[in-house]
């Protein structure tokens, strides 16, 4: 059975009469419909052949849900068998399944080189970027689900609104003390200071960390590791002055800020850009303590 598409055809065919095309005769239309059906059959056959011919196939179990379509509004898993090739990623497998078996299979993806951050998924129980996760490294059948703790819009697409709001809550923009005088003068930064903030600037806003965080799951207002990391990027930059740093510490020290973190390291573990998120949060806690002591 592994070469078969084991997907239930639960979807209701749209029975609506095709809208009359202005310049198309009924004969033309029947012809094109026939052609379309023949092509669909051919494609499906071709896909099956590819699967048969492949030395190896992999199975993926994909979470499906579409509130709009009858028969799909109950969450379920669909199984797909896809031909394996060396170097195949989770995203490659999803694209194959979508383009050959079910064009309604929905997921975000764009750059496929781990920098746009749009394809963070829950793969075999862990947050990962689909495009940089090798199928060969995973135990099959590979289970692919949307990021946990976020509302599912459809299939693997989650609502990112809350994540973006948290990112923007920390005043995520550079606020230097003063700009250098003179034309075309840089605000000099020591290579050491750049090194200190370097990892924090690598965040691609994929949301994997937030989704892996138990605290964020239980406290919707918790700023979360990505937003706190963003605050770290600026608070640790030597060109933002002391007053600005105090303001930043105040933001991340609020009730739902750094003190909520229980150092479980799950964010650090899943970060696809290897940002030491937990360490950054701890360092901000220390900074906050130091700055509070100053006023005593």
């Amino acid at each position, binding site marked *: 059975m592994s070469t078969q598409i084991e997907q239930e055809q639960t979807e209701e065919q749209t029975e609506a009469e095709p809208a009359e095309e202005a310049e198309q005769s009924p004969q033309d239309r029947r012809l094109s419909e026939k052609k379309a059906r023949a092509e669909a059959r051919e494609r499906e056959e071709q896909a099956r052949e590819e699967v048969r011919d492949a030395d190896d196939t992999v199975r993926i179990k994909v979470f499906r849900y579409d509130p709009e379509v009858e028969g799909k509004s109950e969450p379920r898993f669909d199984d797909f068998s896809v031909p394996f090739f060396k*170097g195949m990623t989770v995203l490659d497998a999803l694209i194959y399944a979508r383009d050959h078996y079910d064009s309604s299979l929905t997921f975000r993806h764009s750059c496929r080189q781990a920098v746009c951050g749009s394809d963070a998924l829950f793969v075999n129980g862990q947050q990962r970027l689909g495009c940089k996760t090798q199928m060969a490294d995973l135990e099959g059948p590979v289970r692919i689900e949307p990021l946990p703790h976020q509302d599912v819009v459809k299939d693997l697409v989650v609502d990112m609104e809350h994540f973006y709001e948290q990112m923007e809550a920390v005043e995520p923009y550079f606020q230097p003390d003063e700009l250098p005088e003179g034309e075309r003068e840089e605000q000099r930064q020591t290579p050491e200071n750049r090194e200190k903030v370097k990892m924090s600037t690598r965040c691609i806003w994929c949301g994997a960390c937030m989704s892996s965080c138990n605290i964020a799951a239980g406290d919707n207002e918790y700023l979360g590791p990505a937003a706190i990391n963003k605050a770290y990027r600026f608070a640790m930059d030597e060109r933002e002055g002391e007053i600005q740093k105090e303001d930043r510490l105040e933001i991340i020290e609020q009730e739902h800020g750094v003190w909520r973190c229980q150092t479980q390291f799950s964010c650090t573990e899943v970060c696809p850009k290897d940002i030491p998120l937990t360490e950054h949060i701890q360092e901000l806690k220390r900074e906050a303590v130091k700055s509070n002591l100053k006023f005593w």
Partner: protein
Amino acid sequence: MHEHDVLVVGAGGAGLRAAIAAHEAGADVAMVTKLHPVRSHTGAAEGGINAALHPEDSWELHAYDTMKGSDYLGDAPAVETFAQDAPDEVIQLEHWGMPFSREEDGTVSQRPFGGLSHPRTTYAGAETGHHLLHTMYEQVVKRGITVYEEQQVLDLAVTDHDDVEDRECHGVVAYDIASGEIQGYRATNGVILATGGPGQVFDHTTNAVANTGDGYAMAYRAGVPLEDMEFVQFHPTTLPSTGVLISEGVRGEGGILYNDNEERLMFEYGYANNDGELASRDVVSRAELTEVNEGRGIEDEYVHLDMRHLGEERILDRLENILHLAEDFEGVDGLDEPMPVKPGQHYQMGGVEVDENGHTCIDGLYAAGEVACVSLHGGNRLGGNALPELLVFGARAGKHAAGGDMKEAEIQTGPSAESEAGEIPDGVDVGAVDAGSESVAADGAAVDAGTVVESEVQRQQERVDHLLEDEGVNHAQVRDDIQQTMTANVNVFRREENLKDALGDIREARERYRHVAASDPSRTYNTDLMHTMETRNIIDIAEAITVGALAREEFRGAHWREQYQERRDDEWLKHTMLAWSDGNPRLYYKPVLLEGEKEYEPKERSY
């Protein structure tokens, strides 16, 4: 209906820069983007940003290098404006907190790049685009600029006066991806297209999946000419399996290309005896493919790029991201072994014709960034010139659209700039399959500013309903066929019969596209429908590239033709223009401007 002074379509580097500039000029500006801004493809740029910052460097040198790199198909007013504005833009970015790589004294680092006479490429590791994108998005957040995200713009709302130069753009119509609703956006001052490149026209590309060239196709169908579309940049170092980019920074830092005999091919076979690996991108791409074609490629497909000798410390400091890419996508440890590389589609030099202020020949319609052709890159873009382009011309378009005070443009646009009529070569069939039923811009229905957006909303609603409710051919196969034929026939090396074959395949794709429909009937996040609509844009752009390539009977920059192995300045020092007219492309030419503040005498390009 949403209404703003200025609408920016696309939120990558050019869009963000344009929005900030329009905002600073006092306009109420909003961005409409298919993705969320930080997902934009500018984030994938690696190498750096060219700008003459050193005292011993100068804008004149930068302009000269750019003109030479363009193989004298750049327009001097664009090239000079660019080289003059770039340093201010880079420092501006630095003031916004862009985490540039630094020298010991705390100033920004600059490194050598291909075709540059001075090391003038500023960078942030090998992830310059990521930092540029995020830094500018931060500034957009700071200013509270409205962003409508995950809105796929389907068409421009342009009046349909018969004469293109009388047309006005009043807004755009978008498909709300999450809800499936069609939305009208009205712009009282101007619309700026900043939708990025069309890499998805090809099968092997460094471009993101979202780069389907929507802006080119929309402007083209509204009547704006596409300029020099045959000039497609193939980047010489992309990973063979995925097309993921390995930055020119690797060669800039001293990386070396080897063939299967472990020979340093750029020198051993005399492709560029002066500059070696740092010759410009077209030269290196052809060198690599020649090696492969002559049997000296590795596994008959690629060559090796070696950076091991640079040492771990330098690699980690300046090229760390490259190690991750090679490891994740090719399973190769760049510290231990050379990386496999081959040429892949990377950048579109041509695009929507604009002047130095980003303005098209349609009133109120602008374009900036890769989608635009101000004619800066001409026949070949120098590495490190794309990011400053989007800064300089993004800012100018934003300011102009907001009504900012600017010098009148020297570059002429629109059909009235025509110097000579062209002819679509014999024996090929191009343009709309059935112009009668196509909704072309000029059907006399909408010349009223007040209703043009509404009538476009109506038209797009009908189109979406039809695609959702009818049964038909799946777009994926049509798109795949285009990508395959373009990669096979319109690649680095071009032969007449192949170009004609490609046009035949494009014709066939048009026929099939008539019967296309989405099989997913959902109104929620319907990517099947999105991709179906994008595929039409891909077809139009593929055709424009191929027609331009067939018409240009010479060898210039990235455009190599088997029968014509020389640059023919006497006849071809001119821009290829393609204008959509009642569903059919019209080919004409306009002269190259080699005179600005300086004069640029065409010379043989040697590296």
